[in-house]
């Protein structure tokens, strides 16, 4: 039947439902398991083949040789498009996607993350 106010019932029922939206920064959003977030680099696994650099669509990753069989990675979070092609391309699984997604920042320089070989898993921010 064509009539006005066809949605009135649904609308009034909504009063007693839990809101579908959340108060985001207060309530954390949960990412799915396969989420492609900020990258993590394991320097000890890297063999320096630089396939990730070649495949990266946005030239966001740079692998540098810092010693005999030691490599560090610099990832520019502002350039990265989070496609995780480098994770797929890496033959030694030296790269990994994490669930971290709140990466906005005001300073471009601070968005360049260096995973250096010496300090293993720690994340160091380039000054």
């Amino acid at each position, binding site marked *: 039947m064509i009539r006005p106010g*066809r*949605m009135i019932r649904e609308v009034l029922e909504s009063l007693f439902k839990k809101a579908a939206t959340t108060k985001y920064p207060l309530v954390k959003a949960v990412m799915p398991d396969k*989420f492609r977030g900020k990258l993590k680099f394991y320097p000890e696994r890297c063999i320096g083949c630089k396939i990730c650099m070649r495949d990266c669509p946005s030239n966001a990753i740079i692998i540098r040789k810092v010693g005999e069989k030691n490599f560090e990675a610099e990832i520019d979070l502002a350039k990265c*498009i989070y*496609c995780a092609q480098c994770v797929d391309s890496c033959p030694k699984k030296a790269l990994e996607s994490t669930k971290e997604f709140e990466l906005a920042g*005001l300073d471009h320089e601070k968005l360049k993350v260096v995973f250096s070989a010496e300090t293993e898993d720690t994340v160091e921010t380039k000054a």
Partner: protein
Amino acid sequence: MPEPSNFRIPIGPQHPALKEPECFSIVLKGEKITSMNVRLGYNHRGIEKACEERTYIQDMYLIERVCGICSHSHATCFVQAVEEIAGLEVSKRAQYIRTLIAELERIHSHLLWLGVAGHEIGFDTLLMYTWRDREGVMDVLAMLTGNRVNYGMNTIGGVRRDVTSEQIPQILSAIDILEERTKYYIQIATEEVTLRERLSGVGVLSHDDAVHLGAVGPTARASAVDRDIRRDDPYAAYGELSFKVITDNHNDVYGRTLVRVGELMESYKMVRQILKNLPEGPVAVKAPRKIPAGEALSRYEAPRGEDVHYVKANGTDKPERVKIRAPTLANVQVVAHMLKDRYLADMPIVIAAIDPCFSCTDRAISVREQGNSTAGTMSWPTLHSYSIDWYRKQGIDFAELNKKFKIRGALK
């Protein structure tokens, strides 16, 4: 009563009815539109040129970003063309998974459209409800691919992620809920009187005009043009699925709404079929980095209509030429026709009814500011210092405040 007569009003490049910058320049007499110009190109990002300078793997992600909503469409269309040139035999399972993502994408796109249509005619409640329900399919997509948009599911030679058996019941239950909700929206669309009033008889495009002007997708199908690439030129797994092509002969926005909700119901059916008949096998075959010389044309039924990609390879790891024809480019040309002698108030919904995606359409080049800034414009540093000065006059000094509260960066 004073009446504005023969106004020229700019709808865009910046206008609340448009989610992306395009310019519809409208001449109004009172509330009636007497003539209209469509100006495209504000979003030209030079993607086709950029593709020639990148490898196939890089192009895949670039092309995925032609459009956010139909990202899988463009990526699949491109990848299919490359696979045809390289002569890669993609496994059945990969084909099915591609089709699954394609249909889920169609579901999310059509639900999104329904909400946008509601918003354009001031029915925000419809917007809120459809977008709430759309979260169901977005969650499924995020579960399957990792992300809500730009799924990154395709790779040359197959797909990047498999569908596990635990995921299947979750997808099915989400689809069941969505089907229930879609039935409700069909009821609303056909029975709510204000909605009917705003949609019926608006943006009329006769069957002959639709054929003549080359409309595609739901816009054409609502004018009883029985064309659907999924059936006519089957790709991926569509040749093995059974589905109806929804057409309608209302020829107006109401018809386009019915076609889209009808397609939603078909998509649910297809998703169930795919999950039932999902073949076993590998999800990707190894692709060479260098694609042999050759050319291919790939067509794909995106949620908005026929998407066409032409790829020419020259034997290196970079394509010689990539041509993208997004569905909106075919459809936008009928908008001016549909709006002639209609009310200004119908403009947003008629433009929205082709489900425009202008960034798809343009794919352009950025032009840096030429010459010195003119009197009317302010460069960013000037504007910045102007705003600081203005606030300082009001007694608020940002330099001091910044010292006091050190602005936290995103990284610890």
